[in-house]
């Protein structure tokens, strides 16, 4: 266990200094051990999240984007404490403005926060237990947290069902009786029922058809206004993120490479990976085809258990210089809510998403 990282000093640039911050993640590390052989000899670590720092303001929707395997789901799961992080802080400000670090808490002590930070899952088919009724699924969190009596629970579940656009009569039905979009509404109801303050939505609309996806996105925005919710929206779909998010975090191989407001990240990216990602987004108008050349990234995504030295992106980066393979860039504040982890962020002039 020699590689076990130690707790690092909080970076001053991202301290929980803003009064309106709800959650702040500092230097979060989530390493999964790779073992080998009969006695599970330790071979190394998959660094799924490596020094991730970000913050979520109260009432906003923060987008977390990146390609598969970049660690975005891992970060989401650490925040809801489905995983116990290897190192780092998850600072959460509760309703009484008290700041707690969720990262080191154990099963018992984290319990009170479980009802405040909830999750919506990607697959509306596998995330609902087929042998539980809608009432059982939605009320489970209330039961576990012993929040109310049986009759109160029934009223609460019926009310929540109505709010997510389902008829309260459906309360005794099983999930198989619902379509994909309706199931996702049940998933949302399950997250909402405990009156949460933060919801982590992990690819919540990725499995849905476009017409249903729009219904669910509108519903989530409406609920956010009415229930004063904060969202962490994890997705690989950049057009959905553009639509729903105030600010966006871009991840690459376990690291945050850029954080900026929605408009900035799409129109004015400062990290070469973000630029490549934006240029790869298909624009839904054939007239955009000739506007600006698409950047073809050479090679493949780095292996998180054996990342390249220096900046993880340098073997694929067309602007890479010598410094990039030697020094790991840190996330720097560029002003205007824009944070970038690139040595040459000031010098590069990068292009944003193509326009029709």
């Amino acid at each position, binding site marked *: 266990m020699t590689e076990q990282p130690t707790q690092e000093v909080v970076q001053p640039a991202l301290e929980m200094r803003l009064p309106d911050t709800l959650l702040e993640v500092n230097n979060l590390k989530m390493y999964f051990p790779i073992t080998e052989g009969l006695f599970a000899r330790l071979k190394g670590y998959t660094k799924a999240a490596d020094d991730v720092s970000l913050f979520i303001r109260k009432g906003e929707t923060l987008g977390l984007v990146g390609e598969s395997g970049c660690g975005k789901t891992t970060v989401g799961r650490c925040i809801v404490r489905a995983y116990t992080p290897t190192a780092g802080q998850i600072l959460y400000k509760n309703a009484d403005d008290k700041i707690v670090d969720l990262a080191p808490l154990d099963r018992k002590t984290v319990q009170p926060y479980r009802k405040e930070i909830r999750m919506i899952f990607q697959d509306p088919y596998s995330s609902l237990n087929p042998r539980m009724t809608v009432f059982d699924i939605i009320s489970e969190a209330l039961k576990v947290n012993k929040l109310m009596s049986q009759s109160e629970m029934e009223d609460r579940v019926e009310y929540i069902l109505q709010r997510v656009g389902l008829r309260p009569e459906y309360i005794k039905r099983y999930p198989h009786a619902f379509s994909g979009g309706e199931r996702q509404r049940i998933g949302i109801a399950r997250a909402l029922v405990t009156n949460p303050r933060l919801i982590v939505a992990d690819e919540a609309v990725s499995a849905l058809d*476009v*017409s249903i996806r*729009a219904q669910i996105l509108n519903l989530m925005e409406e609920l956010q206004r009415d229930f004063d919710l904060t969202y962490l929206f994890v997705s690989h779909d950049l*057009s959905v993120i553009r639509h729903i998010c105030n600010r966006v975090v871009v991840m690459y191989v376990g690291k945050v490479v850029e954080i900026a407001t929605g408009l900035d990240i*799409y129109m004015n990216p400062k990290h070469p990976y973000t630029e*490549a*990602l934006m240029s790869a987004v298909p624009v*839904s108008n054939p007239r955009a085809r000739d506007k600006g050349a698409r950047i073809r990234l050479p090679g493949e995504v780095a292996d998180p258990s054996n990342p390249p030295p220096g900046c993880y992106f340098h073997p694929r980066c067309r602007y890479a210089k010598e410094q990039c393979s030697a020094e790991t860039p840190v996330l720097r504040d560029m002003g205007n809510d824009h944070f970038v982890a690139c040595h040459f962020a000031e010098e590069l002039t990068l292009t944003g*998403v193509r*326009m029709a």
Partner: protein
Amino acid sequence: MTENNNLLEVYDLKVHFFTDEGVVKAIDGVDMNVVNGKTLCLVGESGCGKSVTCRAFLGIVQKPGRIVSGQMLFRQNDRMIDIAKMDPKGQEIRQIRGKEISMIFQEPMTSLSPMYTVGNQIMENILLHTGASKQEARERTIALLDQVRIPKPERLVDEYPFRLSGGMRQRAMIAMALSCNPTMLIADEPTTALDVTTQAQILDLMLELQYKYGMALLFITHDLGVVAEIADEVAVMYLGKIVERADADTIFNHPQHPYTQALLRSIPKIAMRREELDPIKGMVPSPFRRPTGCNFNPRCPKAMSVCREIVPSMTQLSPGHTVACLLYESNIKNRKEGEQA
């Protein structure tokens, strides 16, 4: 009919699934044509019948499905032959399937066999359809892998699929599909399981190879962004019928069918400011309880009372632009009276 440049002409194709609960009309009267060397995108939501349509072209409709009626005329050596009449297990279709028409499937993880090396699977197709010897087939396989830009093809040819990433597997699938120089390539959601940057690489590769070999590409997807990137022509499907067909620019900038219009309104636009999305109301109806008249009428913002009674037929608005909607049919009255009489 032989004067034009059509590679495939489909007339009134119907594929029905005879299940225990009833008959599902997965494809209910599709007319379409695929032009030599062009890209046609077939778009629609899940369950609209786009995958079944292309399976019908290869004679691989799964049971309990069956081609009930229709013609599928495919040009082979300047003759039009009807695929619909062929025995799906017979010799004739085997001369076409995998050779003249080949297909790329959605899931690069499951469509390659884990038991055979990548090279073996590609060689199988070459050995089956050409008279090549094993050595020649192997050389051709390595050349193909090189062409789809797989690094070190002479080493990779002996690897098993699990050693390859998703993007690399999809490249191997493309190599397999191209192995016999097909005149038509069907791609069923080939990039849906891939990340955006990998998707961009694969789309570029497919367009480049299409240009090089001059084959027709039938591209099936639900992603309108991908359609806008690659399509020459677009056919929009809803519940087993094609509702609108036109060139890509017309579909995206002057759509005429209410379903196409609604579909385009419901997608978030990346280059625009945030605004409320305009979803299509309701849900896709159950396959056993299709609405009467026009399939889209319960969800259509422009539905008229007559839409519940009459099934719209394809109307030509301008050359190359057809739409199946009663808004554009001038002789509704005559038709209505005719049907009642």
